[in-house]
C-alpha cells in the first residue's frame, strides 16, 4: 500500500486527531420519535406480509379504480399504453434477455411487491393518494387478470402474502458473500 492513497478511515482518523477528544463520541443529537410518527412514514412491506396495513379489496373494485386512475398510462385492460408500454397483465415465456420481457406474471417473485409499488409510487402524478382498500383492490384486479388469484377472491394482509408467484424460484443470487 503506497502512501498517497487515501481512504475514508484515513480521513476520519485525521479528523479525529485534529479535533482531539471532541469527536471521541457522537454528539447525540438524534431526537427520540414516537411510534405514531414512525407509522406515518413506515410503508415498508415484506414478502411474508409484514407491514401490510388493514383493509381489503376485490378484483371487481380494482377494475373500476384501474379504469379511472391507471388506464390512461397503462392502457385499457392492462395491456400497456403509450406512456407505459410494458403490460401489467399477460406476458409469455421469457425467450430473450431483454428487460422488456419482464412482467408481473412471468417475472415478479412476490405478490406483496405489487401492493408495495402501487402504494408508494402510483398514480405517477399523485403517489400516496390511494386508500389502502384501493391499493388492495388494484392489486387484486392485476393478480386476477393474470390468473394468479380467482375473480372473486378478496385480498388483505392475510391473503396477499399467500399468493404464490410463478417465477418465485427464477433467481440466482449474484454474489452470496455480499448478503451474508
Amino acid at each position, binding site marked *: 500500500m503506497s502512501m*498517497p*492513497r487515501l*481512504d*475514508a478511515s484515513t*480521513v*476520519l482518523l485525521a*479528523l*479525529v486527531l485534529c*479535533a482531539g477528544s471532541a469527536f471521541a463520541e*457522537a*454528539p*447525540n*443529537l*438524534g*431526537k*427520540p*420519535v414516537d411510534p405514531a*410518527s*414512525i407509522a406515518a*412514514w*413506515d*410503508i*415498508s*412491506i*415484506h*414478502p*411474508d406480509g409484514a*407491514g401490510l396495513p388493514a383493509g381489503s379489496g376485490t378484483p371487481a373494485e380494482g377494475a373500476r379504480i384501474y379504469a379511472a386512475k391507471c388506464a390512461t*398510462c397503462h392502457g385499457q385492460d392492462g395491456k400497456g399504453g403509450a*406512456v*407505459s408500454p410494458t403490460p401489467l397483465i399477460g406476458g409469455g415465456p*421469457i*425467450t*430473450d*434477455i*431483454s*428487460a422488456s420481457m*419482464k412482467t408481473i406474471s412471468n*417475472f*415478479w*417473485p*412476490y405478490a*406483496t*411487491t405489487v401492493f*408495495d*409499488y402501487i402504494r*408508494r*409510487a402510483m398514480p*405517477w*402524478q399523485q*403517489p400516496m393518494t390511494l386508500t389502502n382498500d384501493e391499493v388492495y383492490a388494484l392489486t387484486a384486479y392485476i393478480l386476477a387478470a393474470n390468473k394468479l388469484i380467482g375473480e372473486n377472491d378478496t385480498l388483505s394482509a392475510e391473503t396477499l402474502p399467500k399468493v404464490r408467484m410463478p417465477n418465485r424460484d*427464477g*433467481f*440466482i443470487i*449474484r*454474489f452470496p*458473500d*455480499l*448478503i*451474508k
Partner: protein
Amino acid sequence: MSQHRRRPRNNQISVEAVAGNGLLDRRALLGRGLAFAGAMTTGATASLAAAAEPLAEPPWSLEPGAAIVPYEVRSRFEKSVARTLGNPNFRPGAQGARTPHHLLNGTITPGGLHFVVSWGGAPDIDPDAHRLLIHGLVKRPLIFTLDTLGRYPMVSRITFLECGGNSAPLFSPEPIQDSVQALHGLASCAEWTGVKLSTLLEETGIDPTAKWFIAEGADAPHLSRSVPLKTTLDDAMVALYQNGERLMPANGYPMRLLLPGFEGNMNVKYLRRIKLVDEPAMGYWESKIYAPLLPNGKAYQFYFLQEVKSFITRPSPGMALKEPGLYEISGIAFSGAGRISKVMISADAGQSWGEAALQEPVLSKSFTRFHMPWRWDRSPATLQSRAWDEAGNVQPTRAQFVAQRGELKKVPPAAAVLNQHCNCITSWTVDEKGEVRHVYA
C-alpha cells in the same frame, strides 16, 4: 485532444514501442519532453510544419473583464459540454442524464455534469423541513435534521457512482454508433462528504437480529432499496456534500445514501428513512428492475457490485484524428471491488497489449485515469482498454461477456438502461481517415 503543443522536432525523444500498431512505452509520458502533435475533434488544425500566426493583443486584453459574480458559471464557450438526456420532455417514467466523458478530463465529475437516473423527477426539498428517520431493529429510533447532522464528525470519500444500467448499449447485437457519453455516461466520480452511517447507528443502537436495512427517499416514487448491513457498514455514508458543496438537486439534495462500489440505484437520494430489518423487502427496484435476465431464463438477484470496467475517452467516437503523429490514448477505469491495479491497452484488437500509466492518486472504488502514448501513422487501428482490480478481477472481453450473459436479439435504443451490469471491453476503430467508430472486436 483539443490542446496540442508544438515543440521543435529535436526536442522529441525516441520512445520504445511496447505493442503493435504504434503503442509506445508509458514512461514516455513522464515529462521527458515528448511532443504531442495532431489536433483531434473540432480544434484548429495544426501541423508541425506550419508556422504560428503572428502574435497580437486580443480584444479581451485591451479592456477590463467582467465583474466577478457570487456563484460562477462556466465560460459561454463551454456550453456544449453538457449531459445528454434520455427523456428530455419528462414523460412519466425514468429520466437519464449522461456524463460527457469525452469532453472532460481528470477524475472528478463536476456537480452539474454528474450522471442522473431519476424515477420521479428531482423533488424541491426544503432542507430545514427534511428529516431522516432511523428505526426498525434498533434500540432507540431517532430523527435527525440536516442541521444536527452538520454537528457530527464527517468523512470525505472520492468514489465513483455507476448506474446498474450503464453500458447497456453493449448488449446490442450490433455495435451502436454513438459517443462514449451514450455508451458509458451513466457513471461519474465525485468527492462526497457526510456522516458515516455507522456513527448514526452507534447512537440508535443495532439489534443483533438486524441483517439488512431499507433505505427510502423523499421523492415521489418513495424509491426504496434493501441493503445488506454487514458488508456495507464500513463504507456507508449519509452524504451531505458533493465536491465540497451541498448535493445537486438531482443527486439527492439535501442528503443521500452513499454505498461506494454498489449499484447506483442503491445510493438512495433524498434519503429520509432507514429501517433496520432481518430480511430484504423485495421491492420493485430490487426484485424487478435491477434483476438482470440471463440466457437460460433465470435472473440475477442482488447483483449490487459494480464490477471492474474501463473505457477509452480519447480518442472516442465523434472525434477524428486529423493527421498522423503522436497522440495520447486516455480513459477511465474503476472497480467496485477496490483499487485499479493495472490497465492494458491494445491498438490491434487485442493481439498485443501494452501497460498504460495510471494517474495518481489511485483510490479504491474511484475513477482512475489512464494514459498511453500512441503513434498513429494512418494505419487502421482497433483501440481497447482492459482493467484489473486489486481483488484480481479482470474486465472480460465482449465475447467472454456475451457467452455468460447473452446479448439482445434486437438493437435497443441507445438510451435504454434496463439491461444491467455490462462491464466488457469496449473497442474503437480508427480508420485511415482518422475517424473513430464503435465496433465489436
